[in-house]
């Protein structure tokens, strides 16, 4: 039981530690000013506006990851409370916490691991609009090839 307690407390302290020392913001920032102006003027949006939709969908997923992680931690706490000393119930609560921590760690830790590796190997850091600027460039290239002015 003490091993379980140690494991649980180390998972909690991992999150506290990463919060205090490793806060890293990586929501995707992308300017949708053109789309907003076009819509306000009642014009049809440019085909490039699809990048705005992708940016908003990705930001929504990032927000949902945080919500689901906290919800799973609380669900695990609820399972532990309602176990009332039953070893099976306690194990269920533990598993919920463990897999929530693994899932959250993968999502939050990806950029931290990349940053550490990039510093060691001398690679450039990922800008927050890394993916979207490449999608935009690809779309512009596609439209140019097809002779459409975006």
């Amino acid at each position, binding site marked *: 039981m003490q091993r379980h307690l140690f494991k*649980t407390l180390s998972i909690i302290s991992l999150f506290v530690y990463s919060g205090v020392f490793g806060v890293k913001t990586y929501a995707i920032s992308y300017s949708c000013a053109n789309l907003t102006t076009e819509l306000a003027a009642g014009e049809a949006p440019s085909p490039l506006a699809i990048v705005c939709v992708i940016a908003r969908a990705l930001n929504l997923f990032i927000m949902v990851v*945080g919500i689901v992680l906290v919800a799973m931690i609380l669900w695990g*706490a609820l399972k532990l409370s309602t176990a*009332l000393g039953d070893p099976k119930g306690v194990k269920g609560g533990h598993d919920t916490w463990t897999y929530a921590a693994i899932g959250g760690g993968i999502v*939050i830790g990806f950029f931290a691991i990349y940053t550490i590796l990039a510093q060691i190997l001398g690679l450039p850091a990922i800008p927050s609009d890394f993916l979207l600027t490449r999608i935009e460039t690809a779309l512009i290239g596609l439209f140019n090839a097809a002779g459409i002015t975006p």
Partner: protein
Amino acid sequence: MFNSLTNVINQSGLTPNEKLTNLNSVGQIGAIIMNLLISISFSVSIIAIAYSFIQFLMSQGDPKVIKVAQNALTWSIVAGIATLASLGIKNVVVSSLGVTSTDITNATPSF
């Protein structure tokens, strides 16, 4: 403690007439879900702590029952602490993911 749903809905910025019909952002829905779970989880852990004390009282010295009660007490306290810690974890995780919605970051439940 047990009127947590009213408190959570009040804190989400909705007027009583709107209730749950006017939830128009993921932030608001997320804030309600998380704060509701925090309130429920903390309340249940307090009830579980009380129940484990009742188990102690009813054990009549039986080592097996005492062990079960001890187990229940330990994990109920851990669950209660984790629930309180999740108030901080919520802000840390959500802000490290770059979420700026004040519906999520500022909302706190009242017990």
